[in-house]
């Protein structure tokens, strides 16, 4: 399989990249810092027989054509597109600083949709898969993580729309993971309501589900129960909750 991983150098994206390489897939890894990518590439290639391609991209300022040309010239048509990168900010509650707001929108919604749009034809032609890292923040709109949650929700909406489109035109599929808390820099130092999962284990789940599942999946799965509870709270009670 030929895979493009967006957000590969840390957290979930790093583990997905590593596991894909260990399984013998061809991987094109993207993230923002060349140093992280260089270290990732060398270490994976030393420890496996894989050959990883890398490209430093800035999702806050994405040159989509450059990314597409580079991937196309390296791998040809890809079979799997992993949109893993995300960005959140603790100030994301109500009004946000404009620069931070722009960054959240671009990294979590605009650039991912742009990438999916650009690679859609390739995915369609290879009957491939699009895997999107969504978030449990999109379970229900709330005052905390407002913009991040809505971007993830929008990305999910877009992903499901693409899935609907693909099902009428090819065998390609879209899987959206509503990811719960994970032990990554996004949750570091925060007091969380629920336990944070090991991103390596989540990566294993995602890889295991390739070619098997599509649609919206909760990871870890127990977040589905939490989602049901959260969505069943009457709005007048929900409005009084502070989270």
């Amino acid at each position, binding site marked *: 399989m030929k895979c493009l991983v967006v957000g590969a150098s840390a957290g979930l994206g790093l583990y997905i990249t590593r596991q894909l390489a260990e399984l013998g897939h061809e991987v094109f890894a993207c993230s923002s810092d060349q140093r992280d990518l260089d270290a990732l590439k*060398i270490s994976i290639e030393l420890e496996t027989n894989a050959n990883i391609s890398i490209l430093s991209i800035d999702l806050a300022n994405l040159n989509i054509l450059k990314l597409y040309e580079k991937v196309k010239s390296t791998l040809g048509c890809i079979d799997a597109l992993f949109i893993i990168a995300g960005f959140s900010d603790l100030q994301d509650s109500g009004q946000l600083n404009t620069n931070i707001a722009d960054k959240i929108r671009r990294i979590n919604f605009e650039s991912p949709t742009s990438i999916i749009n650009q690679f859609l034809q390739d995915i369609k032609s290879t009957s491939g898969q699009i895997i999107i890292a969504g978030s449990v923040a999109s379970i229900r709109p709330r005052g905390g993580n407002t913009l991040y949650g809505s971007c993830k929700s929008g990305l999910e909406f877009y992903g499901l729309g693409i899935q609907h489109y693909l099902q009428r035109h090819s065998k390609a599929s879209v899987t959206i993971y509503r990811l719960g808390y994970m032990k990554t820099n996004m949750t570091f*130092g925060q007091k969380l309501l629920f336990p944070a999962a090991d991103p390596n284990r989540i990566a294993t789940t995602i890889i295991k589900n390739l070619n098997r599942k599509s649609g919206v999946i909760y990871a870890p799965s127990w977040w589905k129960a939490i989602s049901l509870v959260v969505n069943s709270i009457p709005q007048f009670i929900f409005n009084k909750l502070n989270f």
Partner: protein
Amino acid sequence: MILDQRVFSSLDQSESGTFNYVEPDRFRSLDKIVGSDQTIIARGSGLSYIAASFGESTISVGMKFFNKILAFDGQTITVQAGATVWEVQKFLLNHGKTLPVQPGYPRISIGGCIACNVHGKNQYVEGLFCDWVTELWIQSSEGAQINTKKGEFMFDCTSGGFGLTGVIICASIHVHDLKGTSIIEEHIPTANLVETVDILFENSEKKDLLYSWNNLSKPGLNYGAGFVIAGSYSKEILPIHNEKCYPLIGEPNKYKWSLINSLSIPFINKIYQRINARKKNLHRSIYEYSYPAANQGFYFDLFGRQGFFEIQALIPRANWALYASRLEVLQQSYGQKIALASIKLFKGTRNKLHFSGDGISIAIDLSRSKNSLAFAKKLDEINSEMGAISCIHKDSRLDLQTVRDQYGKGYFEFKDELKSLNLKGKYKSQLATRLDLI
């Protein structure tokens, strides 16, 4: 920068508290922390006996995500400082190579090995960890990496520099061919401390693995009797099926009570000696002989929350017989039971605050109490009188005066070097404060 509050403890439980902690998972985050005006100290696995990776008003910077292998050409491996010795060793074993020096627990970080310039199980032959390090990369506060090679000033300061010269990002280490795929171990009984050292020297050029266990639980008949553990590489392939490792964590002991105390020590030592003194032809996998503490980490927990301390001293060989008798007399006068004692031969030269030089290294563990602390203080004086040095990275009790007395100009040399780097107190730990290094 988001800080977490974590409870850290030295392995010996002597120093603990809640400290600020960050855990960068990418270079951009590390740039931010190192480039800030905060006082920081790098933290690898956090398993040091002493408070080397945390301190008051200091942010501990967890390096666990900087654990990648970056280069390997068959002779030298370049690896990020957050990688553990086992992670590196596992990779090397697949290529028929090995790290020349390894501490006895597999989850110690490479950065920690460099910062303390640790020794392994046969220092007499292997040397110290930094003897095999050829190059270092240290993160500068401007965001660049300072590359420094062996023999250069920054390299020399950073080797055994307790993390006080900066955050080590990666290191190049010269590796050795693997001489065997397992080790055959024998235990040679010894009658006392003097005989132990004689047997160690007899075997010093013949054996790949060499150290002793001695029963110092109480003075008197058979004081210091025990056995020398001598091993040779074998071509027999033993599977590394057991990578189990008792999880040591750099936090306060969860067990309140101490099971290693003045009542249990003689009994435990007697049984241990009886079972192990004459064993021959023991086949050990590479993992087992490299990391004897891997499955025995519960030993540290048995000291309970009061903890323990380890005094490891390097005594000139000429003074050994006298030292052994003075130790026994001292122990008798304090009625002190010693939980564990182990001897290794050392070869080398004294160097600043490194635990290095020619002589006999004896490590003793004591359960922490008023009496044992008083005993240890007296032993410090004996060590100083007899030209010995105490291992700084093992002993949280060592005070400034004792270190100055024992290390002499080595202490001032290191302190002056740190001063000359003009780091303005950027890197600091509890250890640095205790020894007035910054």
